[in-house]
């Protein structure tokens, strides 16, 4: 039953119950008054006993109807409630958890080790990077998948301040810039860390949120174990106001309004079956372990690690946590749902590959819901689909439907003379089942999605449509109509050499921009390209620009968050894409105009001449592009069409 209908019926019922109770109460008062009158005037009229019987019968009947209806309304599972038949269960004790993961096929001395064997011998730097946030009228920074769901990145701006953590190996600095009224960039402060390294940043109305980590090497296994931290700073004063520390490895994070959501990975040890969280706020330090009763597991998926969800409310500085046994590889999130995927591996070593050849790869998709008020994260459902989900952009939710694309890796079986494989790609449309936590398939597209040996390279969902690029030697770009979820159908195909690794929707007229790779006739990559498409009825690209940098690579072509993009919906005077090409020390801007014959302009090059390495990011504020590399910041003005400022960073 739909949620609004359920609450509607309940409110109506509640209204009726309250009305009847009030009516009965006033009836009681009137008769009490009547009785007093009768007593005062010696009226020999006794209230017949039937009235009391009727009254009590009514009270009992009413309560019975109310209770039964409430059970009917809220006892039944819906998309947002727990179904009655759950495949996922929770542990009741740490002993049960340890016993369960010990049964894992992966169990050996390496896993489920004792912490005493893992004392850190020395620390060393391990670099990591990437990710990002949102846009507003006057400024643009991180390119996000879902409106209102911020994604982390190494640069953030609110139109006045710019915070930038260089994308270098083991970076320990956050640069805090301010853009003055005359649009000059001023380095106002730096946050430097001694023991922590910067992963990513978020920016809220009040706070700068830094995602940090510590890393250790353990002997004799030469594995790394992390301590990850969240530091929250007042973005004006840069005063540290809150610290959250855990022994998790963070995998993904999102920010919705003032709540930070973290997805982390934790290796279960005998000494510490559950992760620990330490919190410092002002002078108060607290710490706690994840409650084992909040850890879900599936019987058939024993694994010595767990995936942990944390919601961290930055208004109240309170946390909510839950977990499940397993390791995720992709995370999609909108405002009320988290979707994660994990590969189901039932064999180990060479047996794994034999299994893949025989049966293909299976991915488990799991759905969790977020309570808007409490920020609680709750498990809802799962589904096992064929193939791999290789990017968060391959997952989408529209209304009650989960749409998800998967592809099976193209494997060459040397025992076969002809290794051509068809139907490697799948598009699933799933929805929750009312009675169980197993999602049901509403629609499934397999035939015709990709030619021989072609696997999915990029996916872009938009309301009732999805664009999917498959590739082996050429690039078919499929437009698939999803308006009837039970019958997804291909409505347009564009073919060209090469393939797009990222598709960005440009407007509501079917125009998209694809960033990808040019290839030769054998499918070998020869360089980068940008293509403009009309996906409604055109069978070939409208315009393509090949970059004159053979074998070049751009982070932005695979990491959507790093791309600076202002499309027709961005509400800025300029429409463009901006990215850097590794090793060139340049940030490139391409103006986009679908009304012109030359849809994609010549590149505007912002050069960081002295920089060794790459230009990490660019942000847009009020007609200016501010670009950043490890030791330089260069500003470009659209109005003046030139670089207006260049400052060196320490």
């Amino acid at each position, binding site marked *: 039953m739909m949620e609004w209908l359920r609450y509607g019926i309940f409110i109506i019922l509640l209204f009726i119950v309250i009305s009847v109770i009030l009516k009965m109460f006033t*009836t009681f008062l*009137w008769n009490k*008054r*009547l009785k*007093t*009158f009768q007593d005062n005037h*010696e009226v020999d*009229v006794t209230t017949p006993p039937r009235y009391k019987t009727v009254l009590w019968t009514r009270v009992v009947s009413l309560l019975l109807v109310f209770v039964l209806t409430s059970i009917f309304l809220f006892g039944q599972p819906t998309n947002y409630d727990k179904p009655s038949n759950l495949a996922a269960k929770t542990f009741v004790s740490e002993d049960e958890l340890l016993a369960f993961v010990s049964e894992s096929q992966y169990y050996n001395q390496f896993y489920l080790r004792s912490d005493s064997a893992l004392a850190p011998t020395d620390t060393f730097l391990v670099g990591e990077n990437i990710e990002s946030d949102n846009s507003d009228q006057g400024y643009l920074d991180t390119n996000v998948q879902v409106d209102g769901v911020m994604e982390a990145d190494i640069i953030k701006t609110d139109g006045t301040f710019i915070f930038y953590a260089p994308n270098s190996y083991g970076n320990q600095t956050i640069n805090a810039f301010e853009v003055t009224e005359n649009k000059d960039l001023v380095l106002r402060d730096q946050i430097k860390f001694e023991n922590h390294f910067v992963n990513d940043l978020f920016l809220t109305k009040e706070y700068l949120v830094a995602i940090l980590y510590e890393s250790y090497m353990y002997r004799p296994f030469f594995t790394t174990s992390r301590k990850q931290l969240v530091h929250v700073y007042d973005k004006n004063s840069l005063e540290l106001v809150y610290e959250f520390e855990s022994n998790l490895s963070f995998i993904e994070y999102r920010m919705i309004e003032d709540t930070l959501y973290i997805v982390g990975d934790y290796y279960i040890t005998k000494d510490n079956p559950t992760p620990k969280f330490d919190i410092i706020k002002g002078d108060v330090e607290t710490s706690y372990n994840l409650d084992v009763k909040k850890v879900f597991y599936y019987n058939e998926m024993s694994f010595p690690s767990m995936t942990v969800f944390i919601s961290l409310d930055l208004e109240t500085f309170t946390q909510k946590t839950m977990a499940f046994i397993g390791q995720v590889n992709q995370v999609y999130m909108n405002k009320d749902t988290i979707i994660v995927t994990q590969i189901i591996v039932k064999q180990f070593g060479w047996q794994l590959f034999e299994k893949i050849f025989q049966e293909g790869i299976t991915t488990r998709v799991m759905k969790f819901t977020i309570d808007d008020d409490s920020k609680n994260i709750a498990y809802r459902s799962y589904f096992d689909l064929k193939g791999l989900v290789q990017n968060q952009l391959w997952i989408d939710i529209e209304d009650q439907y989960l749409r998800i694309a998967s592809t099976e890796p193209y494997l060459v079986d040397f025992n076969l003379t002809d290794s051509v494989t068809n139907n490697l790609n799948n598009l699933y449309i799933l929805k929750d089942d009312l009675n169980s936590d197993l999602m049901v398939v509403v629609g499934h597209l397999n035939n015709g999605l990709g030619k021989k040996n072609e696997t999915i390279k990029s996916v872009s969902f938009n309301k009732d449509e999805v664009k999917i690029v498959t590739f082996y030697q050429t690039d078919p770009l499929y437009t698939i109509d999803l308006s009837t979820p039970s019958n997804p159908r291909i409505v347009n195909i564009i073919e060209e050499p090469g393939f797009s690794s990222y598709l960005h929707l440009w407007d509501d007229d079917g125009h998209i921009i694809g960033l990808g790779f040019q290839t030769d006739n054998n499918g070998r990559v020869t360089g980068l390209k940008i293509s403009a498409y009309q996906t409604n009825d055109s069978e070939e690209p409208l315009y393509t620009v090949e970059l004159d940098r053979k074998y070049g690579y751009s982070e932005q072509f695979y990491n959507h968050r790093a791309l600076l993009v202002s499309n027709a919906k961005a509400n800025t005077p300029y429409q463009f894409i901006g990215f850097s090409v590794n090793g060139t020390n340049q940030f490139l801007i391409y103006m986009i105009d679908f009304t012109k014959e030359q849809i994609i302009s010549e590149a505007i090059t912002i050069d960081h001449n002295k920089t060794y390495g790459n230009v990490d990011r660019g942000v847009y504020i009020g007609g200016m592009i501010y670009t950043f590399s490890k030791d330089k910041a260069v500003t470009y003005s659209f109005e003046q069409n030139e670089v207006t400022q260049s400052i060196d960073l320490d």
Partner: protein
Amino acid sequence: MIKIVFSKEDAKQLFNHFQYLSQLEVIEEQGDSLSIVFNEQDYEILKEVFDYIQNDRTQLVFQTPSGYAKVPVYEITYFESFGNEVDLHTLSLGKITIKEPLYQLEELLAPHHFVRISKSYIVNLKKVVFIRTTLNAKLDLELNNRTHLQVSRSYVRQFKQKLDIK
């Protein structure tokens, strides 16, 4: 000193209502009657006894299309008007059509615990056995002969005041 002779049935009812009477001396008991003497200090209570008897035994005379009808107050359950005609409903005498308009009856019957409950009805409060509230803020009165009458919203306050008068 006054000596009053009561029928035994009346005396029983009066003793129930005026407990003080049972403390007085019964000087003579004969057949269905008994005599009680009231001294000067009992005159006040005697007045109340008379009022009570008067109210209970009062008979009212109404003009009917064919003449006049004399009806004991305790017989009347309610009055119902239809245009210029008014029906007087009784417990055991049936329905009597009378000529007095309701507004005159309202004044005439006020001392006998009658109350106007709508434009068309006057009810004898002593005949009401149960009151129900309705969802539209009216009152449903059940009389001792199972008749149901409604107190309209604009007369609820007046009805309540009448009930609260001792």
